[in-house]
Each structure stands twice: as C-alpha cells, then as structure tokens.
C-alpha cells in the first residue's frame, strides 16, 4: 500500500491559553475521502489549516505529502487544493478572472490555465457564468467556483472545510456528486463537516472530533456497528410526562438515551421494540423508527448532539 499522504502524531494547536487541538493522531491514505466530523469548535478547521501548511503546528509532528509544512510550506501548497470555509473569492472580478488569477499565483502559464478553466467550468457547471461577475452569483455557484479554483493547479489532495454549510439541499447534492467524481479520478479528499449525512455519504474513513480530541475513528459503517445498535426507535411523549415513561422503558432496549425532547431506544429490531412498548401500555405521542446514524455514535460518545 502507498505511503499515507498525511501523517499526524500527537498533533497540537493552541492559541495562547486556548487549546484548539489537544493531541491527535491520524493518517490519510492516497485516494480516500477522509472526514473530520464534529461540532463547531471541535478543532476541525485548525487541523485543516495545519494540513494546508498555512498554520504552524504547536506540538507533535505532521507530515503532508511526505514533507514538513514548517520547512516546505510553498512546495506542499503547490500540490494542494484548498476550499476554505468562507469562499473568499474576488467578488469584483468575473468567474474566469478569479480562476485565471488564482492559477497565476501557482505560477502556471496562461496557456496551461486557459484549457484547465474550460474543463473546470464544465465540471462545476458554471460554463454559462464564465463572464459573470462573482458577486451576484448564488451561494451554491460561489461554492462550486471556490472548488473549481481549488482545482486549478490539478492538486493531488484537496482540503474542503465545511463544503456544504449554508447550501440548500439541491446545491448540496450537486456538490456531493462533484466531490464523488473527484474521488473517482483519484484525488484524495479531506473534508470537515458537522453534517452526519454528508460524512456518511462521502467519507471512506473519518474521525469524530470533540473539544480538540479524536473520540472515534473508522468507516461510517464500522463506527455505527461499534458504537451503536443497527436501529433506533424514537419516542416523543406529552410535555411533562417523559420522565415517568422513561424509567419504564429501561430494559426494553440495548440502551436508552434520554434527550430533552424525546427518548431514543437503541435496539436490533425497532418494530419489535415498538410492539413491546405498546404491550407494556406505554403510549407515546409519536414514534419514529430509523437506522442508526453517526449522530447516534457521537451522542453516545459525548452525550451531546452534533449540530448546535
């Protein structure tokens, strides 16, 4: 197997007193989609900036594309594509000009950049916007343009910080499709997200981060298998009555989780648990049975939900 593209050992990042990343270990392999899942403030973006060789590490060690970011920053950045959390496009310029200027920062000659721009505009479905100024474009288009910009230097590895935050469902699905195609072409992708569905859809492997540390690691499937049952039955009770019912539910499932607004029963068979609940004479206001998700894993490991 090929050498990992990123190797982090006991990686730390602190800003004065504040510890953003408190000692994490991970490896990103060539060709995979690797995810950092966690709530805001978990240290995902700080980690991404260190991998992107724009933010110096505070401790531990980090190797990116076999190089040390502290020494070979420019050489690493030359081979990376970056899609930051904010689009930071030059909104006064046109779509084409944004891509051309960015390509020039990489030192690529115009005769290499121009055909590349044609390809990227087709890839991101922005052909018709080539001559438009960036400012009036929709959020989804700006995001796609930022991705096209990050691809201008034909990077081996792409770093995407919350690629779909703030986008509507259609725009998200289009973006996921494009990212999937990139993976097919062999580009290694590192993404951060606080959306569990995004992580499940895209990531081959991921780490779940919380308060600057990694709390779990694996493929979405294996994480769910390891830390949760296959199915979940959600029960909602009339206001004020959840407490008394919750006690009676214990023992009916592998594990129960009491949230402010509902009770989660972790079970191998949600339908059977539903029957058991009814047989015991417990009548919730509403029930939902579903497959377990990464959200359940996170909830189990940290006692909190991901978004918020």
């Amino acid at each position, binding site marked *: 197997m090929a050498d990992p593209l990123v190797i982090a050992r006991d990686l730390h990042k602190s*800003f004065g007193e504040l510890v953003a990343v408190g000692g994490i270990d991970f490896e990103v392999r060539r060709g995979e989609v690797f995810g950092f899942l966690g709530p805001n403030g978990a240290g995902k973006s700080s980690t991404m*900036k260190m991998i*992107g060789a*724009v*933010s*110096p590490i505070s401790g531990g060690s980090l190797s990116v594309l076999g190089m040390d970011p502290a020494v070979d*920053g*420019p*050489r690493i*950045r*030359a081979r*990376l594509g*970056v899609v*930051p959390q*904010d689009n*930071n*496009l*030059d*909104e*006064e*310029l*046109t779509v084409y*000009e944004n891509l*051309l*200027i*960015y390509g*020039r*920062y*990489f*030192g*690529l*000659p115009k005769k290499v950049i121009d055909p590349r721009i044609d390809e990227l505009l087709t890839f991101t479905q922005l052909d018709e916007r080539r001559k438009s100024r960036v400012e009036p474009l929709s959020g989804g288009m700006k995001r796609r343009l930022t991705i096209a*910009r990050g691809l201008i*230097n034909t990077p081996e590895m792409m770093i995407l910080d919350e690629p779909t935050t703030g986008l509507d469902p259609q725009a998200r699905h289009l973006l996921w499709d494009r990212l999937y195609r990139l993976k097919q072409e062999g580009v290694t992708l590192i993404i951060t997200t606080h959306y569990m569905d995004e992580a499940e859809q895209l990531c081959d492997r991921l780490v779940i981060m919380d308060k600057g540390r990694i709390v779990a690691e694996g493929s979405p499937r294996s994480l769910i298998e390891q830390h949760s049952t296959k199915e979940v039955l959600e029960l909602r009770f009339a206001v004020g009555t959840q407490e008394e019912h919750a006690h009676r539910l214990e023992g009916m499932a592998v594990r129960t989780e009491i949230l402010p607004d509902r009770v989660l029963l972790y079970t191998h068979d949600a339908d059977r648990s539903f029957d058991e609940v009814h047989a015991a004479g417990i009548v919730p206001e509403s029930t939902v049975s579903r497959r377990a998700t990464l959200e359940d894993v996170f909830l189990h490991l940290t006692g909190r939900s991901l978004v918020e």
Partner: protein
Amino acid sequence: MTALAPTGRVIEASARVYRRTFRGSVMSTFLNPVLFLLAMGVGLGKLVDSGAGGSTLPVDYLTFLAPGLLASTAMTTAAGDASFPVMAGIKWRKTYEAILATPVGVGDLVAGHLGWIALRLTFVTLVYAGVMTAFGATSVVEGLLAVPPAVLTGIAVAAVVTAYTARLKDEMGLSSLFRWAITPLFLFSGTFFPVSQLPGWMHPVAYATPLFHGVELCRGIALDLPSAVSPWASLGYLVAMLALGWVLAERLMRKRLVK
C-alpha cells in the same frame, strides 16, 4: 518559459484586478492635478503673486505649488492603496487567505503589494508631471526628474500605512488615519506654503514628517532651488522609512494572517 517569482505574480494579479476596477480612479488620476493646479495654482496663485507671496516666494505660486502637489499626490494615492485594499484582503473579502493557500507566502504578498503600489505611483506621478508641464509650471526634464522622489515618498508612506492597517480590527482606524495623519500632512508639510511660514515651534514637527522631505526633494529637483535641509538627509529619511515600514508591514501582516 519559467514561472515568474511569487512577488511578480502578486504584482501581476493586482494589475489584473486594477484593469477591472480602474475606471473610477483613472478619472481622478487625470482630473485631480488639473483641478488642483487650476484652483490653487492659477486661481489662488494670482492673489498670492500680487500680494506678499510675490516678495516671499522666489518663483510664482503655480511654479512653487506644482512639485509639492506631485509629492502630496503620491502620498495620498499611496495611503489609499495601502489601506482599504489591505483591509479588504485581510477582513472584508479575505482574499489574502486565498492567496496564502497557494505557494505565495506572506513576504511575497507584502513585497508584491508594495511593488504594485510603486508601479501605480509611477503612472500617477508621470501623468501629474505631464499636467504640470502643460500648465507651464515646470520643464519636461525637471518634471520627469521629480517623479522618482515622489514615488519614493509614496512608497515609504505605503509601507507604513500597510503596517498600520495590518493591525486594525475594523475600518474606524482607517478614517482616523486620513483625518489625523494624511490630511494634516497634506496641509502642513510645505505643499501649499513654505514651512518657514509656520510658527517657529512647528518647524521641527514639520521636519519630522515624511511629506516635508518628499516635497523638498521634488521642489528642489523641479525648480533647482536650494532646500531647507540637505537633500541627502531627506533621501535618507525616506529610504529609512521605507525599509522600516516594509519590515514592520511584513511582521505585522504575518502576525495577523498566520495563526
């Protein structure tokens, strides 16, 4: 073809952005010198030359004013280019963040930014020198000779203003910069009247300002007049200011952008 050095790429990118946005500034580039020379040089000049100015100034007022305005224009242009675009790059549009994700580093970014301002100042002051010549305020050769010291004045100011802007949290500090530094410098550094007209205690203050030295150099060259201080001292002052401002700008920009 080998790739240009990163600093050159930043200059090139700035030029491309400028090509897109130059319309507003090009008017002022050509119009401002005409308006100023008309109003101050010709209009006010008549009054000055027929009054006490005639005996105080060695030349007519328009001739006296023009090289001073050349240096002042370089300063205000530089201050504008080194403040608002820098704030936009750091905070408003965060384009600097995007640039630093490429092989371009903070040192390249600052050098390219100042390099671009130097190019633009050269263009602006050449236009100005042309207008001065057209007004009969100077000869072609002397007008051209006054361009380099004017550009030096501007770029020294630009370096310091860049350093100042790199530390600013928000745009409030930008209006303070123009209100408390650029405008007083513009008015009291010898552009419109000799510093010797100021009360005695203000002379050392005037001598300590960069624009005074810029004005002295430009006027000395354009009019071939003896200046109040040695031109070498003025030159040394501006070069030192540029060097110090550049080092500071890079250091503060790194502190602001690399976290």
